């Protein structure tokens, strides 16, 4: 495979929230990249900073009052953290767009879904109202919403959870972005629609060379769609590899635990599911050494003392662990 063009490269991104309890680094030193036309899967513990990373890429948090960004986010070689807000506005929704995790609260309750889809169209593609409306209906149909002509004029609270999520997807895809950040786009969807949406994303990704960051908990979706996966734990990337490698021989103990926890359709007679023991530490009580050490079955004294680097372990397989599984 020829070396591909990187559409996005995140280098040592740190996002810290200013909270009542002081600064909290929700994301610390995360680095990864997305190639043109590639689907990158992001998985990780709930609360590990996936959504924050995603939103940091778009600089959605209020920099005056809420957060502080550090590091570099190179989009087409341009550092998004450096450019002025005006330029950023131009990129959002047009070059990079995003599907939010929480579909109800992310849709504006007082506008119809149609108006919300039309807005970026009229904004970025300078469409006329009529044209935009047609396109909105088309988008709704594309994401599998029945009777889209009627649904365009409904309000978010009148739709079911899955429909709202699809509206979000429709908004994100409406301007044919070059990079799509999808934060759990299919959680509220039934499997048939999920399949349809994933197919849609794959298709666009294929046809238009759209880069995709797919954040999800559904490892099955990752397995089906992504080429490369990164695994996050407590604000850091802990593993990065091709999808087959991750599933076949995960190196990080956390990834390993994750994969073992998947309930399988074929499982018979299992009474309990596998879990990773222990709990994620608080952001302001992060351990000094390896962040996973307190929960790691293989942790040594070194792990508790020192923070491992995120390094290439095996070919394109990167991992943040002193003792990667299967490499001893």
């Amino acid at each position, binding site marked *: 495979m020829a070396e591909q063009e990187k559409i996005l490269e995140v280098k040592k991104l740190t996002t810290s929230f*200013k*909270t*009542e*309890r002081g600064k909290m680094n929700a994301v610390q030193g995360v680095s990864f990249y997305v190639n043109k036309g590639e689907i990158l899967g992001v998985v990780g513990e709930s609360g590990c900073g996936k959504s924050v990373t995603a939103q940091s890429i778009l600089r959605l948090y209020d920099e005056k*009052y*809420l957060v502080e960004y550090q590091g570099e986010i190179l989009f087409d070689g341009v550092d998004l953290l450096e450019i002025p807000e005006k330029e950023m506005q131009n990129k959002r929704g047009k070059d990079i767009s995003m599907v939010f995790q929480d579909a*109800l609260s992310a849709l504006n309750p007082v506008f119809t879904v149609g108006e919300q889809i039309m807005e970026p169209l009229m904004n970025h593609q300078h469409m006329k109202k009529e044209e935009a409306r047609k396109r909105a209906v088309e988008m709704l149909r594309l994401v599998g919403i029945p009777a889209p002509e009627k649904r365009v004029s409904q309000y978010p*609270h009148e739709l079911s959870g899955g429909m709202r999520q699809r509206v979000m997807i429709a908004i994100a895809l409406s301007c044919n972005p070059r990079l799509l950040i999808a934060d759990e786009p299919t959680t509220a969807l039934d499997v048939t629609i999920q399949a349809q949406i994933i197919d849609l994303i794959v298709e666009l990704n294929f046809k238009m060379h759209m880069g995709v960051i797919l954040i999800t908990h559904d490892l099955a979706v990752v397995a089906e769609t992504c080429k490369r996966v990164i695994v996050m734990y407590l604000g850091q990337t802990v593993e990065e590899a091709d999808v087959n490698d991750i599933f076949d021989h995960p190196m990080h103990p956390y990834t390993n635990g994750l994969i073992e926890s998947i309930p399988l359709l074929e499982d018979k007679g299992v009474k309990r599911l596998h879990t990773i023991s222990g709990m994620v530490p608080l952001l302001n009580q992060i351990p000094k050494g390896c962040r996973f050490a307190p929960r790691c079955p293989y942790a040594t004294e070194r792990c508790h003392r020192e923070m491992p680097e995120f390094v290439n372990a095996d070919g394109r397989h990167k991992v943040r662990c002193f003792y990667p599984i299967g490499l001893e």
Partner: protein
Amino acid sequence: MDNISAKTTNMQEEENIAVLKKQLKKEQRQIKIHKFTNNKLAMIGAVITIAMALVAILAPVIAPAGPYDMLVSDRLKNPSSVHIFGTDTFGRDLFSRIIYGARVSMGVGAAVSTISLVVGMVIGLYSSYYKTLDSILMRICDGLKAIPAILLAIAFMAVMGTSVRNVIISLAIVYIPDIARITRSSALMVKEQMYIESMKALGASANRIIWFHIAPNVLSPVIVQTSFIFATAIVQEASLSFLGVGVPVPAPSWGNILYEGKTVIYNAWWMIVLPGLSMAFPVLGLNLFGDGIREVMDPMSN
């Protein structure tokens, strides 16, 4: 053996939790204090408000002269070292009158705004929650708002004699609908939120939902409206007093000082500017303080 260890771990756990609770409480306290003290404007607001209240309470101590001491031949003297705020149309010391006036004016402002805040919120919240009540209460408010305050005040005066109470009641009646409406408008919106539905699912009583979940979410527009009422009540008090239906007269109030000043606006600026300023102070203080409360209550701000 096993039993004992279970017991000890249990005890230990209890202890741990107790320690944790304490720790959390302490942290919480610190956060609150920090949040408030860090909010400089709110602090300034609080200081101004408290200072004004002190001025009112300590009027007899602060004022250099009695509010009624008059020397008519000294009327309308410029501010000077003898009368730092000058004298009024009766030759009374304006500074003393303004200080004593703080009692009546801030009293009326505070009473009217508190009464209309409380009653208005009750009406607004309940009518937003119950539709039948809504159509009744809101129509009553429409009716109330149509009745002129002077008429109310004159009628009350006839029944209960002259007193500050009349002014307070008649103004409160006029302002209650305002608060009720503003409360209702926000409450109608809040009521449709999912979290209200989720409270219902938990079996929360209507009263609890109304007071613990809707009310805190509608406070910020209500605070704005209330501070507005505070200011207008002070002025209105004067116009009613002037008709003889308010504060028994020679008693000083900022409003009636202003009214007296109105006729001499061309030749005695101090009669207008100084009471006007003294009115602006508590309004400013209250507003800043209200803003501060809003900030402290707003979970998103820090």
